[in-house]
């Protein structure tokens, strides 16, 4: 693990305030989810998961067909589809569009996909004013931080952090009451909405048979961003497509429940192109940007293709004992938690963040709660295996391989195992592992782990004694 991450994790673990914030927030989200997927409340929960998974599998296995269908329907609705290989393509399109329309002011609703390509900073460098309008994202934009969590981006900050931030950046009086802080943001952002030329949203689902982008939000900023400005640009990964509008009940029932324990988010917007001829309002122009950014590479890997089924509910984060301890900023990329550990190495290159798939106890809680039944532990194991193999081919870590070879030999020789056990017990005595052994490679291994005390008598010895008596 690179030292920078080790330090970040160490800092997260020793920050009591942060530990309690992350622990209690994720616990609340876990409990809320549990209430609304209970058998008495949603008897067909398991069937819905099966269905959602089957639909995702089918769509991704035939992705080119559904992408072309989506494009044809968007065009028929009077909108345009923009294909983007990566963030550069997205930025080129947006800056070109802004220039052509003489626009400078952009409002954004929350989108992990745009975080992935660091859109805000790049547009700002092109002299556009970009304002995040989801409350959590707005706070993070002011603080120059990236999201801590897929659905609760500012989960790690307290009202006091927000009070300082607003006072500093907005020049308002320091306000620690959360309701009043929210109203300050409402007031500031409402002005931004009314003045904006372009509204950028993400997309929870792209509906192929309708040419529609579906966004699920709670605050209403997603609606404002897609209603008030003359131009709406939706940016979504190519894996977000689903075949039919009639598939939405399945996914909508799972998404809100898994994310925040809501049967439906407050607003579910089904947006099919620009305002029609006689409609009272809505944007005049509609663009759907389909982003690849590594997804087609992942698609080619049959065994790990299911990583693309993810609907970004964040449930695996909330249930992950590792995420809950080390927090979202200890992960190297915008996607954290189990799904982050699975997709980061696949998007960024296997050896770029090679330590990540190993930072898991493989407890399986994530797979149990995933609404599309992604087998996350299996994917983590597959990644580990690939990483180890590619290392063995390269320079590799000789020490680790030797250690495991020795371990394997010892485990196959019970006599030796027992001898070493007695030796360890004799050396350790009552005081645990003696200091000299806490240096070197063993020390590094022990730094983050507690080894249980070595018993004075082994199980075998006790067993023999019992048989003898």
């Amino acid at each position: 693990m690179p030292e920078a991450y080790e330090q970040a994790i160490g800092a997260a673990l020793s920050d009591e305030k942060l530990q309690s914030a992350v622990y209690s927030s994720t616990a609340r989200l876990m409990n809320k989810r549990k209430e609304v997927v209970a058998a008495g409340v949603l008897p067909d929960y398991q069937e819905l998961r099966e269905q959602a998974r089957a639909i995702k599998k089918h769509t991704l296995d035939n992705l080119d067909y559904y992408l072309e269908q989506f494009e044809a329907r968007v065009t028929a609705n009077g909108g345009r589809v923009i294909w983007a290989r990566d963030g550069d393509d997205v930025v080129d399109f947006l800056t070109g569009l802004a220039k052509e329309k003489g626009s400078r002011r952009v409002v954004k609703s929350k989108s992990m996909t745009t975080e992935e390509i660091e859109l805000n900073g790049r547009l700002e460098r092109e002299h556009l004013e970009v304002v995040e309008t989801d409350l959590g994202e707005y706070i993070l934009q002011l603080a120059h931080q990236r999201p801590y969590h897929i659905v609760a981006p500012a989960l790690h900050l307290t009202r006091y952090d927000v009070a300082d931030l607003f006072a500093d950046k907005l020049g308002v009086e320091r306000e620690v009451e959360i309701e009043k802080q929210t109203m300050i943001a409402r007031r500031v952002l409402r002005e931004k909405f009314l003045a904006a030329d372009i509204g950028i949203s993400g997309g929870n689902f792209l509906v192929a048979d309708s040419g529609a982008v579906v966004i699920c939000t709670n605050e209403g900023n997603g609606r404002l961003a897609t209603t008030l400005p003359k131009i709406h640009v939706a940016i979504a990964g190519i894996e977000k497509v689903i075949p039919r509008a009639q598939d939405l009940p399945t996914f909508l029932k799972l998404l809100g429940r898994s994310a925040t324990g809501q049967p439906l988010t407050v607003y579910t917007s089904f947006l099919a192109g620009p305002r029609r001829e006689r409609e009272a309002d809505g944007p005049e122009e509609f663009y759907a940007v389909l982003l690849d950014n590594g997804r087609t590479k992942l698609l080619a890997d049959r065994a790990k293709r299911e990583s693309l089924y993810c609907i970004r509910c964040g449930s695996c984060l909330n249930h992950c004992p590792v995420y809950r301890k080390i927090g979202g900023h200890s992960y190297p990329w915008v996607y954290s938690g189990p799904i982050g550990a699975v997709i980061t190495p696949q998007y960024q290159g296997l050896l770029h963040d090679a330590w990540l798939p190993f930072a898991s106890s493989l407890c399986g809680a994530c797979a149990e709660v995933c609404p599309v039944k992604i087998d996350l532990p299996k994917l983590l194991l597959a990644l580990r295996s690939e990483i180890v193999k590619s290392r063995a081919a390269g320079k590799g870590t000789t020490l680790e391989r030797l250690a495991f070879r020795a371990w394997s030999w010892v485990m196959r020789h019970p006599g030796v195992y027992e001898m070493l056990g007695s030796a360890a017990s004799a050396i350790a005595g009552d005081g645990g592992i003696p200091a000299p052994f806490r240096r070197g490679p063993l020390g590094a291994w022990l730094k983050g782990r507690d080894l249980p005390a070595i018993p004075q008598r082994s199980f075998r010895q006790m067993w023999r004694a019992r048989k003898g008596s």
Partner: protein
Amino acid sequence: MAREYILHKTRTALGRNVGQPPAAAPEARIRVPQAGMEERIESFRQALEKLSGTVDVADSPAAARECVARLLCGRTAVASNAPVLAECGVASIEGVRAGIADRKELRAACAAAGAGITGADYALADTGSLVMISSPEEARMISLLPPAHIAVVPLDRMLTGLDELFSLVPAPAALTSSMLLITGPSRTADIEQILVRGVHGPGEVHVVLLQRYTQKEEA
């Protein structure tokens, strides 16, 4: 160029050819439950009240008008051109502006009003949701910009839930550029997971269910 690149990479990854039809898709899962109107109203009420919305049942257009006036409580409002609002005579309530045709004017009026009054195409009993299909009669802004939203919904528009909605409207894009589900007041919990209503959208949602004469007879 990017288009061909992405489609080519996708097809190569999947081993598919240009123009190859997809394998048979799993059937869409639509399950419409049976529920009587009384049961639906009760479920709608429970779901919306849990989110701090309110539900009234009015047994005549005049009663619905009274109800709206009471909910407005003296606030100014913008009303949509929904036929049900005209039927109830909402426009004659003091402080209510209706029939705004100019887009700029509508926007300014909505930004300044204390409440927005709309109809709704459907209501969903199991989640307490309103279904708003954007049209010449129904602007999106009225249920969005003002701090309170009042919707008058004829009872025969009460569906059991999402499955029934998408069985009745399998292709929303054929009707409109925007179909919106509203489930309770705008909310956030982005700071310390403390719930605050009305962050960007309306912090109040009131639904008046209108039982028409014919329906009373049927019942």
